[in-house]
């Protein structure tokens, strides 16, 4: 009997907070609401930290540590328990979720102080924490799916938080519907797992795989199918090609939401799910290959789209999509621990970037267009410094966190049979682009001159998505006190300390967070990988091509021959160089000679327009999927089936009885002689029938 850690309390505490605030919060004062929300989140974090501490490898508790509360669903031989699963992977996830989540809760106290629906916001935020923790702690796919759907719900509620704004309500719906498409594939994947394994419990599924008594001829196609279904589910939640379109629109939500849900935690659920299912993916080399390709495409695609965005949050949104692409790529080359490592560092620096952007938006009174910003370096120094740290971190410049995780992914890609030099080169190019657009954001926001309200942004007038962007620009009501402070430098103010404190903590984490994974060739020990190794190696090794010499999950841990070391240094050097080149170009374009971008964009007008319009993907989806579906629903389902068949049946029954009654009514004339005639005819008919019977007998 191992120690009972009461893991159920970790997700349940935020749920209690959500329930209290959601049901009673309307009558509470704001301070009370934030106290409740923070208390329960902090308790959850503390409990998680204690549980992780207690179960730390070598503490005597065997990992994975499973706690089952009871049976949830039983159907025939299949049953799904309410069970929680703590291993090295969920330890990292649970700490990231509760830790970053708690910091963002603190930040929100300041950020949302002037908003309506304060209690609603915190109730939703706590609800999100509950579902996210259920997702990462579940011990079977079904319970994970509950969390998976629940975070989608919370995301929908929070994106549409300013529900009076049409664009926010639409963005919420879009996020939910696009996610449903992926969820559908996830469901199919689960059905396949049930069919093949008869259980959805992790230990059951992975145990059977580890035992290895699977008939390859029957199993491998099936594994590929399962892996592809799970992967498609992950592309929805983790905003990968082709389902990434909801994430940029999700920026309609309040900025802390973007930071928590759409950067640090929820969108990483897909990565977590793939890493959790690594045993299945390892048996499906084709699926791994596809995961790698999708991640690679997403990374470069989103990075280029980020180049032309002018909304500060949208730049970060595309950057998130791109970074998630990196994590996908890591999973695709079976370097799951590198993916999780990047997930962790990304949670730090991207949450910091979003919160920093929120602080900037707060400072300039709701403005989100970077072209109207500038020169904020002196006005909001703390925000400037923390955003600087995060920018360096995401650009992959050592010794900041992003460098180590990104380098580890790129190194794994280079050596993996599913990656190779081409995909590696694309990854490095993406790193350069990342560095470019992030420093572009940095220079545009903090350097130059403040142009609030003075710059006439004319080009939006002829861009088709002008309404969408214009709504951002005019969304000054996202800050209640915005209107009186917009104009003049005097209005720009540093955020309160309740917002800055989480920023500073995250900045520290963005700086040192990568040090836990310093690769061996640099003299580190790559603790993350060693920490995760028991999880990632419990399954079979990657099937298929010869990977024995470069076992993708452990090649860093292999002995450091001088040759290897030189190669690693070269690879790392390449990605750092890409980052520095990006920095240089951003410096050139947006600081040294700001007229350069204009000249270049006017020369390459076609490409620029295409990038500005995000490759017309939204428009394409609209034309290919949405419009035909709408037409089908309107013409066939609505007018044809609903109005024609169903309404036709109901109305037809009424009309028929009315018609028959109308005819029969004529007989009820009140005229005695016509009644008599009917009686006579009836009698004659009966007599005639009897005569006929007698004759024919």
């Amino acid at each position, binding site marked *: 009997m191992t120690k009972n850690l009461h893991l159920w309390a970790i997700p349940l505490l935020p749920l209690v907070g959500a329930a209290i605030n959601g049901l009673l919060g309307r009558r509470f004062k704001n301070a009370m609401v934030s106290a409740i929300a923070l208390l329960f989140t902090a308790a959850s974090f503390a409990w998680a930290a204690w549980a992780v501490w207690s179960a730390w490898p070598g503490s005597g508790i065997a990992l994975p540590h499973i706690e089952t509360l009871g049976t949830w669903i039983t159907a025939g031989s299949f049953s799904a328990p309410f069970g929680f699963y703590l291993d090295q992977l969920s330890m990292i996830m649970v700490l990231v979720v509760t830790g970053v989540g708690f910091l963002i809760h603190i930040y929100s106290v300041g950020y949302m102080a002037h908003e309506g629906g304060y209690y609603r916001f915190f109730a939703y935020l706590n609800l999100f924490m509950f579902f996210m923790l259920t997702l990462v702690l579940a011990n079977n796919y079904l319970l994970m799916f509950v969390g998976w759907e629940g975070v989608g719900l919370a995301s929908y509620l929070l994106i549409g938080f300013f529900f009076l704004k049409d664009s926010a309500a639409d963005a919420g719906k879009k996020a939910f519907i696009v996610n449903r498409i992926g969820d559908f594939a996830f469901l199919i994947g689960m059905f396949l797992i049930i069919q093949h394994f008869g259980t959805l419990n992790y230990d059951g599924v992975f145990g059977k795989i580890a035992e290895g008594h699977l008939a390859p001829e029957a199993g491998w196609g099936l594994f590929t199918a399962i892996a592809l279904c799970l992967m498609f589910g992950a592309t929805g939640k983790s905003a990968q090609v082709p389902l990434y379109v909801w994430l940029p629109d999700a920026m309609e939500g309040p900025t802390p939401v973007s930071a928590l849900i759409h950067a640090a935690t929820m969108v990483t659920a897909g990565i977590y799910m793939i890493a959790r299912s690594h045993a299945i993916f390892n048996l499906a080399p084709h699926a791994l290959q596809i995961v790698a390709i999708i991640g690679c495409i997403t990374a470069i695609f989103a990075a280029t789209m980020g180049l032309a965005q002018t909304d500060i949050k949208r730049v970060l949104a595309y950057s998130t999509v791109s970074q998630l692409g990196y994590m996908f790529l890591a999973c695709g080359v079976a370097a799951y621990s590198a993916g999780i490592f990047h997930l962790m560092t990304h949670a730090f620096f991207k949450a910091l970037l979003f919160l920093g952007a929120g602080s900037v938006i707060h400072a300039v009174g709701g403005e989100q267009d970077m072209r109207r910003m500038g020169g904020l370096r002196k006005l909001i120094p703390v925000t400037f410094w923390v955003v600087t740290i995060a920018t360096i971190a995401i650009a992959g410049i050592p010794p900041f966190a992003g460098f180590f995780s990104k380098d580890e992914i790129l190194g794994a890609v280079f050596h993996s049979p599913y990656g190779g030099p081409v995909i590696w080169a694309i990854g490095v190019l993406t790193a350069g682009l990342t560095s470019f657009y992030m420093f572009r954001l940095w220079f545009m926001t903090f350097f130059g001159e403040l142009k609030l309200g003075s710059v006439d942004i004319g080009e939006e007038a002829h861009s088709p998505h002008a309404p969408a962007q214009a709504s951002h620009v005019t969304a000054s009501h996202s800050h209640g006190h915005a209107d009186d402070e917009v104009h003049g430098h005097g209005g720009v103010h540093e955020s309160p300390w309740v917002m800055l404190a989480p920023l500073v903590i995250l900045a520290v984490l963005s700086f040192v967070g990568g040090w836990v994974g310093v690769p061996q060739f640099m003299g580190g020990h790559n603790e993350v990988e060693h920490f995760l190794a028991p999880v990632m190696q419990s399954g079979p090794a990657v099937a298929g091509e010869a990977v024995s010499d470069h076992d993708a999950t452990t090649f860093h841990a292999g002995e450091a021959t001088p040759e290897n070391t030189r190669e690693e240094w070269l690879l790392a050097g390449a990605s750092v160089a890409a980052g520095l080149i990006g920095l240089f170009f951003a410096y050139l374009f947006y600081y040294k000679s700001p007229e350069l971008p204009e000249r270049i964009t006017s020369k390459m007008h076609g490409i620029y327009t295409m990038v500005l319009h995000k490759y017309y993907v939204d428009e394409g989806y609209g034309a290919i999927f949405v419009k035909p579906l709408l037409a089908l629903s309107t013409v066939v389902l609505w007018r044809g089936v609903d109005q024609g068949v169903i309404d036709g049946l109901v109305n037809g029954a009424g009309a028929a009885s009315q018609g028959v009654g109308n005819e029969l009514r004529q007989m009820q*004339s009140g005229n*005695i002689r016509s009644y*008599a*005639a009917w009686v*006579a005819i009836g009698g004659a008919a009966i007599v005639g029938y009897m005569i006929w019977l007698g004759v024919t007998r």
Partner: protein
Amino acid sequence: MVPLSWYLILSGILFSLGVLGFLLKRNIITIFMSIELMLNAVNLSFVAFANYWSTHPVADKSMIPLSGQVFVFFVMVVAAAEAAVGLAIIISVFRTRETLNVDRVNLLKL
């Protein structure tokens, strides 16, 4: 001896006259008399059959030969009662409508 068919034909003619009178006439008194005519046409066929079966051997021993004549008495009693009620109704209708034309008595209320 008059054959059965003649009685029946006469009965049919009388019944048809009753029906036609009922359908075609408008005066309630005439209609009432047509009803009596029909009843009596039926009575005629009853007694005709009764007479016939009392003079011919009956295959079915359970059959009582004179039952037709008994039925006639029942019919006559009912007809007498009906005449009493019917005439009362006619008088009542005439008092309120001041007409005996059935086409003008076509509502279930007065």
